[in-house]
């Protein structure tokens, strides 16, 4: 089936990730599968014909058949995310097209399956990287992998428990958190925004043969990508995705 065609998906599950972030499971007829890091477009159409589209990264691993998870942060002045959070219930149908994208994709195949993998996320930028980590775990890859994940507060860390359990499996994954606004008592992790020194320190054990994916707000992506370039990581091994509301 043409991946670019709009088709109707059915909401089959909704669950809270953090106070402002929820995951939505969509069952999609004839879904031909996706690659970790790809996204879909959602389209909402009002009765008067006004329609709005937004892109959301797929959070689930490609190994799951016939359905995808999207993890969406509620943006107060947004048009689509408040609808998803406040209005949509299980059983509702929503227009979807995809999967879309090939630039920001990691696959447990070919050289990527064994190369060190350095992931950098800010806030809900973790979503496509989580698809990569879930795919990595399901595929049994053991390549050295580190996720540097910036959140404001501990309670805003998306997928916190799942990341803890993935990192506990001793398959080569380490998760490094930085909390930029508040830290719980006894916090041993980073407590500042991502900077050159943090990138250098977290990348060091992986080395310059790493492949890197960075996703988050534009400012974070710029800082992290520029730091990697200065450290000497070849530009063609750095892939970035800036997120934010798209004006379509």
């Amino acid at each position: 089936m043409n991946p670019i065609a709009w088709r109707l998906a059915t909401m089959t599950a909704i669950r809270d990730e953090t106070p402002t972030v929820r995951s939505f499971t969509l069952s999609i007829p004839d879904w031909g599968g996706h690659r970790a890091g790809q996204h879909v477009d959602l389209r909402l159409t009002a009765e008067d014909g006004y329609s709005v589209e937004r892109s959301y990264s797929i959070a689930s691993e490609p190994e799951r058949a016939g359905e995808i998870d999207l993890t969406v942060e509620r943006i107060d002045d947004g048009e689509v995310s408040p609808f998803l959070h406040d209005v949509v219930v299980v059983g509702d149908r929503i227009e979807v097209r995809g999967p879309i994208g090939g630039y920001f994709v990691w696959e447990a195949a070919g050289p990527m399956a064994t190369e060190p993998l350095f992931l950098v996320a800010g806030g809900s930028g973790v979503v496509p990287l989580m698809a990569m980590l879930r795919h990595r775990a399901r595929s049994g890859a053991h390549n050295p992998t580190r996720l540097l994940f910036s959140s404001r507060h501990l309670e805003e860390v998306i997928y916190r428990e799942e990341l803890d359990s993935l990192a506990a499996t001793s398959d080569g994954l380490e998760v490094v958190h930085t909390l930029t606004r508040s830290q719980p008592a006894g916090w041993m992790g980073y407590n500042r925004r991502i900077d050159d020194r943090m990138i250098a320190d977290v990348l060091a054990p992986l080395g310059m043969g790493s492949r890197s994916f960075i996703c988050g707000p534009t400012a974070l992506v710029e800082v992290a990508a520029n730091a990697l370039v200065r450290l000497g990581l070849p530009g063609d091994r750095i892939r970035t995705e800036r997120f934010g509301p798209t004006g379509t």
Partner: protein
Amino acid sequence: MADDTTVDPVEAQVLDGNAVAGLLAAAFGVEMTEVPGACAHCGTVSMVGELRAYVRAPGTVLRCPACSGVVLRVVETPSATLIDVRGAAYLRFERG
């Protein structure tokens, strides 16, 4: 980020070509984010996914990450998608 006071507010809104990948795929009929294109202004070859996307406008402007020259402009009307390609010297599509 909301707590970022050091970045120009317009630049802080910049996304990349991935943000309009669905729109471009629908218009061109193929996945576009890995398609290399040459900037007509400076010659730098970037994949469409690497272009800087300015989305806070009527339509989307995709600029060269090296020289900031406009490479593609994309506008949707109720019945059509218009893509201004003057800023691209070429787009390279691999044959299957």
